[in-house]
């Protein structure tokens, strides 16, 4: 077997608590399918037959009900354990027998996965990852007061001339004094392109030896936060390239341990035939200096930068809204579910999606919206640019614009909701007028 797929679905969705306080993130509906369906669909399309899913008990029940042809091996972890992604890999270490493809549950993309995996295969890389251009979110996000915040911390990504080899990766948060680049990198790759407008898709191909390495280095708990920058740095560290004897006199114990651990990453005996091949092959990945291919380095990290196509990571409210807009393009289910009852005199726009068992009454107008399953929409309702989740009841005469209504909410008659986020099971009293608010939890209804 060549690759095993691991789907990380235990994350909490900490950046959109308003949506996820009641529903776990993997089950958030996007385009009327749970979020976790999208990466599973991607893996299925590409040809995977089994996936290891790491998630919590709540999600497990739902996941097993999904209609995917993959064989899902669900591993439950405690939500309270607050495991990082690397910790999770350590947890399932016994199931891992070959190189792995780690995917995050909030990735919605139509990337040609073979591009990433080809880099991994062709160059015998230790890490291959996917990045795409950051998406500009143009829709108004409910509940956001004032201008958009400074934005998340930027990532600085350095790639070589071909745009494939990953030379440098750091997050703005870690660079207090400015960007420092080691001389060893510049000597080997004098031309480096540093990009900042990139979104990490959290899709990684990792070699099996990395999992073994994680076993020994229990201090690494997050793949994205710690493991990847570590691997990228270690490409150019002296201990990887020169076979120094392990027992250097002036190294303290800790360093010795780390060196010993690094050797796991390097294939210890690079098969003599592979060496012979490389020696006889007249190929080099760079030119201009006297070194052989890959500068003799055994640890290589590659990145595939997606130029076109869709790639979203649904970890903020803005991303969630955008993804709802774009996700339907990924599958070709009919926009109006066959079991939905849509009255004749209603106006359902072509870019709207109606879920199963919905009831849309007369004289309603639905434009650019997503209506979840089992939702009831009474007469004379106008819904624009909104996301209505499952089980919602919208009474007559409502006007909902640019909002997100979570599951099982009830919107009273003639309510006017603009750019709001209505939490799960909330009730909006009739004749209410809300603009740009987040209505969740025990936020009581206002009295008119």
């Amino acid at each position, binding site marked *: *077997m*060549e*690759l*095993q*797929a691991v789907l990380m679905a235990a994350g909490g969705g900490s950046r959109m608590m308003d949506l996820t306080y009641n529903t776990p993130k993997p089950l958030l509906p996007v385009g009327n399918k749970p979020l976790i369906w999208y990466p599973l669909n991607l893996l299925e399309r*590409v*040809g*995977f*037959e089994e996936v290891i899913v790491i998630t919590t008990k709540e999600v497990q029940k739902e996941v097993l009900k999904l209609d995917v042809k993959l064989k899902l091996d669900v591993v439950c972890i405690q939500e309270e354990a607050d495991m990082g992604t690397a910790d999770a890999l350590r947890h399932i270490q016994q199931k891992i027998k070959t190189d792995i*493809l780690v995917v995050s549950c909030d990735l919605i993309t139509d990337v*040609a*996965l*073979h591009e990433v*995996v*080809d880099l991994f*295969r*062709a*160059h*015998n890389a230790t890490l291959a990852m996917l990045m795409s251009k950051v998406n500009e979110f143009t829709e108004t996000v409910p509940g956001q007061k004032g201008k958009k915040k400074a934005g998340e911390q930027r990532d600085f990504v350095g790639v070589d001339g071909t745009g494939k080899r990953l030379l440098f990766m750091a997050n703005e948060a870690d660079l207090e004094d400015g960007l420092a680049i080691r001389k060893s990198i510049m000597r080997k790759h004098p031309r480096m392109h540093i990009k900042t407008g990139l979104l990490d898709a959290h899709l990684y191909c990792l070699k099996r030896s990395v999992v073994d390495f994680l076993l020994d280095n229990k201090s690494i708990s997050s793949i994205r936060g710690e493991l990847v920058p570590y691997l990228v740095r270690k490409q150019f560290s002296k201990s990887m390239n020169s076979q120094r004897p392990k027992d250097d006199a002036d190294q303290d114990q800790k360093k010795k341990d780390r060196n010993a651990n690094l050797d796991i990453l390097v294939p210890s005996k690079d*098969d003599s*035939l*592979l060496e*012979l*091949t*490389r*020696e*006889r*092959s*007249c*190929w*080099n990945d760079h*030119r201009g200096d*006297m070194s052989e291919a890959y500068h003799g380095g055994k640890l290589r990290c590659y990145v595939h930068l997606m130029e076109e196509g869709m790639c979203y990571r649904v970890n903020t409210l803005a991303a969630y809204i955008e993804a709802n807009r774009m996700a339907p393009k990924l599958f070709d289910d009919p926009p109006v579910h066959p079991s939905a009852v849509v009255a004749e005199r209603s106006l359902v726009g072509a870019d709207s999606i109606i879920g199963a068992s919905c009831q849309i009454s007369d004289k309603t107008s639905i434009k650019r919206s997503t209506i979840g399953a089992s939702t009831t929409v009474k007469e004379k309702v106008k819904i624009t640019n909104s996301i209505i989740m499952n089980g919602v009841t919208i009474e007559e005469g409502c006007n909902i614009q640019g909002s997100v209504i979570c599951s099982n909410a009830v919107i009273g008659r003639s309510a006017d909701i603009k750019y709001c986020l209505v939490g799960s099971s909330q009730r909006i009293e009739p004749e209410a007028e809300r603009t740009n608010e987040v209505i969740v939890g025990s936020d009581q209804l206002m009295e008119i």
Partner: protein
Amino acid sequence: MADAKEKEEPNQAPSINHTADGGDSKNEDVGRSKTDGRELTKEEKQRLRKEKKQQKKGKSSKEDKGSSEHDQGKGKKPVALPESQVARSPPQKAAGPTAPAPEAPAAASSSSSDKPTKSKAELKAERRARQEAERASKAKKGEPGQQPSSSKSKAVPSELQPVVKRLPEHVQVDDPAAIRKLAKKLERQQIPLRSDYGNKVSLFSHLHQYSRNAPLTQQISIPSTVIHPSIVQLGLQYSQGIVAGSNARSVALLHSFKQVIQDYTTPPNEELSRDLVNKLKPYISFLNQCRPLSASMGNAIKYIKKEISNISSQCKEEEAKIQLLECIDTYINEKITLAAKVISEYAIEKISDGDVILIYGCSSLVNHILCEAFEKKRKFRVVVVDSRPRLEGREALRRLVKRGISCTYVLISAVSYILPEVSKVFLGAHALLANGYVMSRVGTSQIALVAKACNVPVLVCCETYKFCERVQTDSFVSNELDDPDDLIVTRKGKTHLQDWQSVKSLGLLNLVYDVTPPDFVDLVITDLGMIPCTSVPVVLRVKNVDQ
């Protein structure tokens, strides 16, 4: 050897890998040759039938019938009659379907044409051993006779009916029937078909032309189940040019085969010797789709298949695997590593102090020779000639300069300028054909031509495992077309050829190989010694007899 392999294959496994055969096919005449394997298979079957008949009826006139028939039947082929008749006597064993007997038919025939005396004795001995089964094959004698000799199609000793001439698939791209056949075969093996790309120059429209941006891995599932992962990796490395060069490709191929063998388990009710060969066939098709097989790879595959078929059924799986892995290691050691050593020793004799040596492109063997010569304290300097679009000379330049050899670097357009300074030319080869032609990187024949005109000796260095029983007199018949987009270059921000596909009358041609006639080559240095170009068929024959 090769012949035997070919002959046996059809008997054991009907679905022959077209490309493997094509790769090894001997005697490709301009558009008219058929592979030995094909003919012989039919021949074999016919022969067996005939034998049975003969035993009952005792015909002896078949010989005459056969000869006359093959004179007529192969009207197209410029059959040399006397040759075929002479050839008929010794190479009787040609058709030897029976045993994995070393095929001296090829040897026999060549021997008959070249040096009848010595080989005839050997052949007679062999013939006696096979006389029982061979009487009927007299008609077929003509066939093997033709094989190795240059530029003739073999006379098909078809006594009963004219044998279908078959061209290898890879030179029949403009024939829709051949393409359909290939597509069907690939479908059966569950390998995706790679589609051609771009306008082809009409003179080369019979060859495949692929784009590097459309790799074959797009069409297979990502954790590849049908094809072993190391083969997928190898195919990718071939198509992207990461593993390039005849020796490197063969070594990488054998390395992958080692992985395949290690991971292989015999299914129940199957024999390792047959099943493993069948398992390898789709892999070879896949690799061929990624990049057409080289002659050295073809020979390596033949060797492996032979070794696998020779595993006795008593052998346990573990032992068989260990044995096979050892065979592969021995092959690489003998044919590549030790051969390089021996060739360096011979070649170093030819390098004298004060020499100016010209090399072309990046041949691993020539680089090895020069480095060894430098170690042995010979004083010489090197002129590295390079050409677009591959620019492999830069890699050769880097390796030589790293060792400390003083080098000059020119492009091929400056060859006639630099040649008066040069005292010797060392060239590497991709394959040596049975008629003495040298198949090498495109541009080699030009260098040889200019060197000849300037009276500079040209020495070709080539290991014997690259000797191929094919025959070619020009570079058009069978060649490889690389990605035409490699020719596009951006200078000062302008890419003039960016939309070359929209100009219907424009075709970009990126040839990979060309053939150099033996008149331009003064010496071939092989691990068997230093031989003239015309002795290649002899070496092939000797190899076949040995095996």
